[in-house]
């Protein structure tokens, strides 16, 4: 209404001073846009689930990789889903869990980081980003208890640390929003037990990014080997894992060609030695 300060074109809530958090602003001004708003959590149909994502540190950075399969029960729902996303210049997120919820949460989280940066004129610290993500997962607890859990794996390059062996950091979460910093390597999703076992044997601290990517693809291959919900490298359709490396210069998503080359080497290796 015209009597509200200042005017209808920009609603009053937009002109009210507040924090740099986009999700808090949405909750106050546009609650209908928040993920999960107004959902009636009755009996749920079979939904798409994302599966295995692995992260490991390398020399002065961190690597995040995820397979491409989404399942609905026993059916492969999608062969080329993307579960690994670059969230800002120095961080990335991989998701396991209900795909619809997870992708919406990633969209909101990316905007959360960008919004803060634009409003405040400075980037959040890596711990700040990890904590923001924790509170967003905690906000989804009600849905998680109904089976709509989202479990991200968050990685980033900590620009405030000068020791290059500790700059790449990995955070895992549980459905209550618990935030746990992981060291060396970690994995989430249905195939993560196998992927973590593979990484346990292969991981070398301080290896170069290219070798770390090789370890990650090997681990995803092992996960796909044991877990039906995880997809291996698909050489016939040219569908390969999504790989992101983060160093001091920022996050880089590897091209399909580059990951394809690594995947072909991994598959060629397994031709002679199936156990890797």
């Amino acid at each position, binding site marked *: 209404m015209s009597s509200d*300060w*200042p005017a209808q074109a920009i609603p009053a809530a*937009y*002109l009210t*001073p507040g924090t740099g958090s986009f999700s808090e602003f949405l909750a106050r*001004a546009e609650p209908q846009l928040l993920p999960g708003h107004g959902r009636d959590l009755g009996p749920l149909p079979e939904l798409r689930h994302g599966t295995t994502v692995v992260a490991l540190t390398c020399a002065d950075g961190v690597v995040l990789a995820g397979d491409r399969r989404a399942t609905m029960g026993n059916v492969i729902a999608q062969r080329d889903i993307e579960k690994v996303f670059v969230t800002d210049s120095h961080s990335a997120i991989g998701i396991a869990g209900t795909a619809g919820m997870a992708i919406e949460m990633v969209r909101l989280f990316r905007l959360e980081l960008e919004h803060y940066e*634009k*409003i405040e004129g400075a980037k959040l610290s890596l711990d700040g980003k990890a904590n923001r993500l924790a509170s967003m997962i905690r906000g989804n607890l009600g849905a998680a208890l109904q089976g709509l859990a989202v479990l991200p794996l968050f990685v980033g390059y900590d620009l405030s640390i000068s020791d290059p062996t500790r700059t790449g950091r990995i955070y895992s979460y549980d459905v209550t929003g618990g935030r746990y910093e992981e060291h060396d390597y970690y994995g989430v999703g249905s195939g993560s037990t196998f992927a973590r076992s593979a990484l346990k044997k292969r991981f070398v601290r301080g290896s170069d990014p290219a070798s770390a990517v090789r370890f990650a693809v090997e681990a995803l291959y092992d996960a796909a080997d044991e877990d039906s919900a995880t997809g291996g490298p698909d050489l016939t359709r040219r569908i390969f894992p999504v790989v992101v490396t983060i160093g001091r210069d920022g996050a880089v998503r590897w091209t399909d060609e580059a990951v394809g080359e690594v995947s072909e080497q991994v598959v060629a290796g397994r031709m002679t030695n199936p156990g890797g």
Partner: protein
Amino acid sequence: MTMPIYASPEQFMRDRSDYARKGIARGRSVVAVIFSGGVLFVAENPSPTLHKVSEIYDRIGFAATGRYNEYENLRTAGIRLADVRGYSYDRGDVTGRWLANAYAQTLGSVFSEHSKPLEVELCVAEVGPPDGPTDGTADQLYRISYDGSMFDEPRFVVMGGVTEPVAAALEATFADGWDLPTAMRSCAAALGSAADGTKRVLSPAQLEVAVLDRRLLGRTFRRLDDVAVAGILATDTPDAADEATTDGGHPAESTESTGPAEPTEPAEPEFPDGDGAGDPAGGQE
């Protein structure tokens, strides 16, 4: 019992205009110009942290003069509007014209409905697509005045402080499709112009410089720090200036150069007031 003093509506509005205009004229000037690689903002701003120029969205930038607390609030509102719209529709659905309209309506209704008008003048700039024309025809510069009137400027915007000498200086040097170093040197020189013809030389520390780089995908807004600005202002030949932009962390300017640093184009006759195309008759939306 006292009677309220009668003031005619004309007088009432004129008083408000004078009040807002005086407030804005007390500040320092900001210019936004179109150059070959996008839009360049140059502001005279001694503070390195209280910005007059800011990013709003992927291809949209914002510049303001006047009262800091008032335009800072409008800047925040603009970022929120753009982010909410991009989140609920798509990033491509956020346009400069839409945002400028929202600002214009807000400033207009504050001007006519509230006891104190906002003492701010805003510029919303948008660059065209990365594969679009480089002559600036796809870029937009909107100037929004304290009373909500909105102007679509084809070449440059000058706001705040004493605008006439700055606009006249820019009018004299502006060249279509000029490169970044030439445009920046011209803007810095224009900001140092005073009404009595004297010239101040502004140091890089006194300037706040940012660009919307049309060639980038995604977020195009880049701030240029003092070192990068000093490098560009200090060079005379366009080739050397190109290297300076690369060293300053900003993507290198494209290869075309428009000749000497001080173009000698005369003022164009159709804008005798030296205010660019800012005359309300031609530019009002």
